[in-house]
C-alpha cells in the first residue's frame, strides 16, 4: 500500500519536474524565436518594398466550395441511401416519405450549385 502510494507520488513528482523544466526551457529559449524581439519593419509582409495597404485579415474565395457541395449532394446522399434500402421493405411508406424529404433538401443544394455554374463542363 505504502509502496504504491510512493510510486504514485514519484510519478506525479516526475511529471511536475518535467513540465516545469519544459516551461522554463520555453521561457528561456523564447528570445531567439520571439517575433516581437525583431524590429517592427522586419515583421511586415514582403511585397517588394512597399508596405501593405490593407490588413491581411480578409475573406477570400474558398475554391473548393462547389466541390464540397457536389460531394455532399451526391456522395453523402448515396451513403445514406444504402442503409435506407436495407430497411425500406420493413418500414414501407414512412421510409419513402423520409427519404423524399431528405432528397428534397439535398436538391436545393444541387439547384444552388447549378445556378453558380458548378455543373457546367469546362
Amino acid at each position, binding site marked *: 500500500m505504502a509502496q504504491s502510494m510512493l510510486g504514485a507520488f514519484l510519478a506525479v513528482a516526475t511529471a511536475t519536474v518535467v513540465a516545469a523544466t519544459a516551461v522554463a526551457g520555453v521561457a528561456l529559449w523564447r528570445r531567439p524565436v520571439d517575433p516581437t524581439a*525583431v*524590429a*517592427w*519593419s*522586419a515583421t*511586415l509582409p*514582403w*511585397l*517588394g*518594398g*512597399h*508596405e*501593405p*495597404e*490593407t*490588413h491581411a*485579415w*480578409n*475573406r*477570400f*474565395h474558398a*475554391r473548393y466550395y462547389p466541390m464540397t457541395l457536389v460531394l455532399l449532394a451526391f456522395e453523402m446522399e448515396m451513403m445514406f441511401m444504402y442503409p435506407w434500402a436495407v430497411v425500406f421493405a420493413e418500414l414501407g411508406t414512412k421510409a419513402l416519405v423520409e427519404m423524399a424529404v431528405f432528397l428534397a433538401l439535398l436538391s436545393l443544394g444541387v439547384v444552388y450549385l447549378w445556378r453558380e455554374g458548378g455543373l457546367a463542363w469546362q
Partner: protein
Amino acid sequence: MAVTRPVPGRLARWAGAAPVPVHVAVGHGGDPVLAQLRADRRVEVVATPRHATVLVVAGHVPEAARTALHATHDQVRAPRATVVVGVEGTMVGIPHAVSVPRTGLVDGLVAVQHDLLAGDRDDPSIGPDDNPVAWQGVGPHGQGGEGMMGGVPWGRPMAMPPVEGRDGLALDRLALRLGPFLAGLPPLLVVDVGLQGDVVEEVAVEPVPADEPPGSMGTDGEDRPSVVITELVALAELLALVGLAGMAVRVARLATGPVTPGDVAGLRRRLDRPLGLRTATDGVGRLDLSGRAGDITARWRAWLDRAAAAAAGDRVPPTGTLDLDALAHELLGMELGAALLSLASLRPQLAAATALPAVAA
C-alpha cells in the same frame, strides 16, 4: 554597428561553406550582376529578403526607389549585411553597406558571410523600429471595433468591399502594391493590383521614375548590358519564377560567358522538351500588345531568336517599349500568378520603359 554573438568554430566553418543566401535589389543596369550571382555556386539567389543574409544592390537605384530599398534592407534577417556593387553605400542611402567591385563580387560576399558568422558585423535598421500607426480598435487589447471586422488595425483598413455582393457572399478586395524589388518582376516596376480572390480586378503598371538620363547608368562605368545578357537574364528570371531553379542557374551561366548560336539552339531544345519551360508557359499570359499577340512561350522564343542572332553577330533591333496602360488593360481578369508571369515575360521591354527619364508633368 551592433555586433552579435559569434557562431562557434566548427559550426561557423560548416555554415561558411554553404552558399551565401543573397537577395538582389535590381536597379537600372543590374542584370549582369544578377546573372553573375545566379551563375555562381557559392551564392544562392533567394526570392525574398527574409531568406537572405546579404542584400546586394545591383545597378543604379533612383532616388524615388530609396524608401523601398531601405524597407527591403530592414527585412533582411539579422545578422545581416548589405553589399553595393561598384558604387559607394552612401549613393543608395545605406552608408554602412560594403562596397565591392564587380570583379571580386562573389569573393566579397563570401568574406562578408564569414564576418557575419564571426559576429563582426550586423547592419542596423534604417527605418523606425516601431509601427508609426497604433492599433485603433476599441477592445481592452486594442482589438476590434464594429463587429468582428471592425477597427483599423495598425492603421490599415480591413480589405472590405464597398457593397455586399449577392447572397451576402462578399469577397474582400485585397489591394497590393508589388515591387519595385520583387524578385521575378522586371526591375524598378511597381504594380498596383486589386484582387478578388486571386483574380486581378484592377491593375496599374508604373515604372519608378528615373532620376538620371539613360546611358550614364550601369555599374563600374559599363555600357548598357548586351542583347544576349538582357534576353538571357530575362529567361533565367522567368525560369526561377516558374520554379525551374536549376535551369535558371544554367541559363545564367550561359549569360555570363561567351555565347555561340549553338548554345542558344541547345537551350531552346531543352526548354521545348516535355516538362521544360514550355509546359509551364504554353497558353499562359496571352497578350495582344501593339499587334503582336502571343503567350509567354511565344515571348521567350522571341528572346532566344534575338539572343541567337546577337550571338551570331547579326544586328538586333532594339527592344521596343510598351504602352503600359494597354498592358494593364490586358492583365485584367488574369489570375495573379499568370499576371506576374506575363510581366516577367516582358522584362526586356519593361526594363527599357523604366530606364526612360521621368517626363516632367
